[in-house]
């Protein structure tokens, strides 16, 4: 299979912007949708559209089957032990907030400590700040070095008996380096501290085996994974989920409701109050089958690697007056996903993005929801180029050429 075969599965890629073919390089924010996923979403909305679990009629049972079989597919995809450990949410942000609230209400007390890292997305910072404010707990931060590596040694000194949770990203949405999450989990577990892994970027390019990684929570979104927006997953170990208080109250999450007291539904229903995103969640099945297909295609993987290598080396080689400074420089055998955040000397990130846009290239500019990281590197923002398996060598070459033109316009 070739990259061009993959492109055929994503109809949005065929469009033109400003009479130029679209080059979509903002995949770390939102990927394009698989045609199969859109068709499934459409089919469910126009066909088997009924609320799940509740009614006995045919449509409801078809809808329930679509939804619950997705849970099985996700369990298998993550290699979780049981389907009760897979919760559907609206995305990574909702997943993390669920943990921050429910785990926080159950286990966090005044003076307890939570650790995050300096390279987290705002979604993996703010929910913990809110929790710390509520509970008078303390938020601590693992720093990163100049190349963008987590300072694991700092974690060793930050971890104490008061640490109740460590929340780190598998891959930063700015730096792209695959963090040593396994090492972090082992370290934390040796101190009896559970770990939440933000998998928003990691699930797309690295994947996860939650039993092998042994993390306590793992969160990701469907919209970065070629599925419908408003879909997401929280994996949580049963031993935590069972003890955690519910996040939201409502229909479907209850055992029995009396004004004298309500009992809660068993997992996973306890955490899925109200009508779920029933038409959209099943599109995660399309993502999963797409990923398993491309991951075992060696020919395609080789082609993707060559695009990645071309981009990385081309950007690294831009020196001189308008030098490109790349953030997140992998060392040794360390892996970096095909995501490149950079600044160009003498050219503002926003100007570059604006000009590239008129050339038909969609890139991201600004703080990328990681303001502490921008402060860490002393920049007001960066340009980010993030690739998906449908981005071709021709697009990469066109981008490098266009970047040169944009820089010369600005310099």
């Amino acid at each position, binding site marked *: 299979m070739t990259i061009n075969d993959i492109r055929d599965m994503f109809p949005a890629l065929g469009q033109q912007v400003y009479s130029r073919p679209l080059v979509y390089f903002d995949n770390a924010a939102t990927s394009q949708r698989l045609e199969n996923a859109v068709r499934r979403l459409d089919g469910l909305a126009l066909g088997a559209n009924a609320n799940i679990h509740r009614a006995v009629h045919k449509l409801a049972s078809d809808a329930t089957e679509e939804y619950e079989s997705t849970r099985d597919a996700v369990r298998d995809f993550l290699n979780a032990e049981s389907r009760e450990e897979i919760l559907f949410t609206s995305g990574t942000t909702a997943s993390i907030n669920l943990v921050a609230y429910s785990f926080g209400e159950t286990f966090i007390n005044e003076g307890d400590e939570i650790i995050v890292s300096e390279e987290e997305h705002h979604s993996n910072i703010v929910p913990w700040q809110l929790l710390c404010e509520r509970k008078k707990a303390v938020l601590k931060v693992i720093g990163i070095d100049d190349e963008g590596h987590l300072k694991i040694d700092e974690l060793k000194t930050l971890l104490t008996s008061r640490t109740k949770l460590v929340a780190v990203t598998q891959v930063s949405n700015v730096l792209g380096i695959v963090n040593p999450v396994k090492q972090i989990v082992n370290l934390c577990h040796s101190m009896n501290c559970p770990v939440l892994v933000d998998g928003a970027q990691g699930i797309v390019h690295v994947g996860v085996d939650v039993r092998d990684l042994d993390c306590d929570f793992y969160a990701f979104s469907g919209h970065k994974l070629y599925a419908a927006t408003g879909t997401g997953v929280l994996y949580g170990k049963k031993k935590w989920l069972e003890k955690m208080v519910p996040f939201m109250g409502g229909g479907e999450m209850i055992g029995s409701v009396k004004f004298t007291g309500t009992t809660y539904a068993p997992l996973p229903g306890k955490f899925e109050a109200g009508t779920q995103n029933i038409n959209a969640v099943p599109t995660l099945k399309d993502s999963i089958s797409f990923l398993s297909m491309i991951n075992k295609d060696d020919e395609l993987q080789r082609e993707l690697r060559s695009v990645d290598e071309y981009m990385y080396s081309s950007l690294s080689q831009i020196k001189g007056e308008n030098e490109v400074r790349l953030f997140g420089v992998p060392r040794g055998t360390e892996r970096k996903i095909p995501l490149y955040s950079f600044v160009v000397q003498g050219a503002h990130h*926003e*100007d570059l993005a*604006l000009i590239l*846009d*008129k050339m038909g290239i969609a890139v991201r500019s600004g703080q990328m929801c990681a303001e502490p990281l921008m402060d860490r590197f002393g920049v*007001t923002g960066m340009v980010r180029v993030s690739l998906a398996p449908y981005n071709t060598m021709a697009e990469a070459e066109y981008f490098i050429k266009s970047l040169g033109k944009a820089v010369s316009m600005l310099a």
Partner: protein
Amino acid sequence: MKTLEEAKQAVIDDFSMYDEWLDKYEYLIDLGKNLEEYPEDQKTEDKLIKGCQSRVWLDSKVEDGRLFFKADSDAIITKGIISLLISVYSGRNPKEIAEDDFGFIGEIGLKENLSPTRANGLVSMIERIKELARESVGHEPQGEVLTAEDAKELAPLYDNVIMAIKQVYDPEIPVNVYDLGLIYELVINKKHEVFIKMTFTAPTCPMADEVLAEVKKSVADVPGITGCEVELTFEPPWDQSMLSEEARIELGMD
């Protein structure tokens, strides 16, 4: 100098020379590069325009009844945009600027072609220019040339006006608004009209309107004064360092 309408038409004509937006950007970049230099030490927090993603500083001054702008930005296209606005509006009567609808921006299609964050930034720039213009409307007398005799004649009026302002007390603190440091500017022109710019200790003061009216009345009642305009501002925000010696003693702070 061109009239405002002529200046706008010139920009519209310049823009219409280019079909492609890339070329229009190039034109904006050139404008940005050629913008008069903005002093580094004036790149202060209070000169920053809020609501822009990139940083934009805008400063103004009134000279001979006309309002002049100076600006800078760390992003060159944004700098081009503010330069374009300055080229049209700088050096004009503040009232004319404050009352303009800035509609020519729509005619060149600039707003529609910016990213949403930049489009908002453009709106913020226009708002700030209008705000500065409105603030300057009452300050045209600053451009008035005073002779030594005029100054001598006005001096006792200043004393009396200050006395009158000192009759007005803050509703919450037992100190008059003058010693509290709430009066930022006080100007009396040759026609003996008074222009005051003042603030409050907090933007949420519920008695603000009453206090403003009281200041206005107290000053207007001073013999020889023909009128009084009071304008409210929160730039810069008030803080304790603005208290007078007397106020500090009154409040037992020293």
